[in-house]
């Protein structure tokens, strides 16, 4: 029977190679997320931060407000335009009927 399984040195080499390749793969995984299953409330936020959270929160809320107000304004503006056009067309039809 042919012994296809490599010797101890070869096996050690294979395991070492697998570990060497797998380490960078694990390192490339995205960082583990905090609070995935549920949120735990605390009374105070961390005092020292590398990325300022306040700026991100203000931008997020500001963006949402601007988007919503902008969209509502766009509906109001488009509606006004269509209604003015409707009025103008109705007047033209009325004028045409009176002449005809």
């Amino acid at each position, binding site marked *: 029977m042919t012994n296809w399984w490599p010797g101890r040195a070869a096996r050690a080499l294979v395991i070492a190679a697998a570990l060497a390749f797998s380490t960078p793969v694990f390192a490339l995984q995205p960082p583990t997320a905090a609070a*995935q299953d*549920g*949120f735990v*409330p605390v009374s105070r*936020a961390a005092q020292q931060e590398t990325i300022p*959270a306040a700026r991100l929160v203000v931008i997020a809320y500001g963006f949402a407000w601007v988007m919503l107000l902008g969209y509502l304004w766009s*509906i109001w503006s488009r509606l006004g335009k269509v209604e003015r056009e409707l009025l103008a*067309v*109705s007047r033209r039809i009325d004028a045409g009927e009176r002449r005809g």
Partner: protein
Amino acid sequence: MRKLFLPLTVVAAGMFMMAPFLIDGAPYESTMGLVQKIFYFHVPSAMTMFVSAFVCGISSAVFLFKGRAAADRLAVAAAELTSVFGIIVLVTGPLWARKAWGVWWVWDERITSTFVLWLIFNAYLLLRKYGGAGSERLAAGLAIFGMANVPFVYWSVNVWRTLHPKTTVVPTLQPGMRGPFWFCVTAFLLLYVLAITARAHLEAERARLEEIYLSIEE
């Protein structure tokens, strides 16, 4: 609805003005701190986006199978609102992720599928605008598939391994967080009802104008 429109607009405006005070009073999350407060606008926007996708899909199905023009007008309004709330979700999410995960964007299942959902409804709007005659039926078919995508987006965090918080977050919210959160959800849904009513009315007025022009030509 016409009689209720103005009082409801005042209520919605009041709710949106009151929301920042309630959010400010809510407790901080232990691991994420202040940035977690984006949650109070991010998740209600996502919920409204899902509701809007369903409204668009169901109205499109009614239009396709029953041929009702009013359903088609509602579908157009809902598609536009899905896109608007989708932008809010896709912008506020990365702002939260930058602090919580250290990156702006990760191509994980929840984020990618939300982006695809948003693209589908933008494709719907582009098809309606530039598709020419008959595009409303094609777009209606697209909206049904867009709606079918919603459950996959919702469950993606539970099925695949992802960085995004799971669906268990909302049902397990602590009392201090629960109140402001559901207040914001109500405000967003109320605003959605008002916006879709106004947008569908705009579509009805456009249809009326088109009918008048057609009758003049004849």
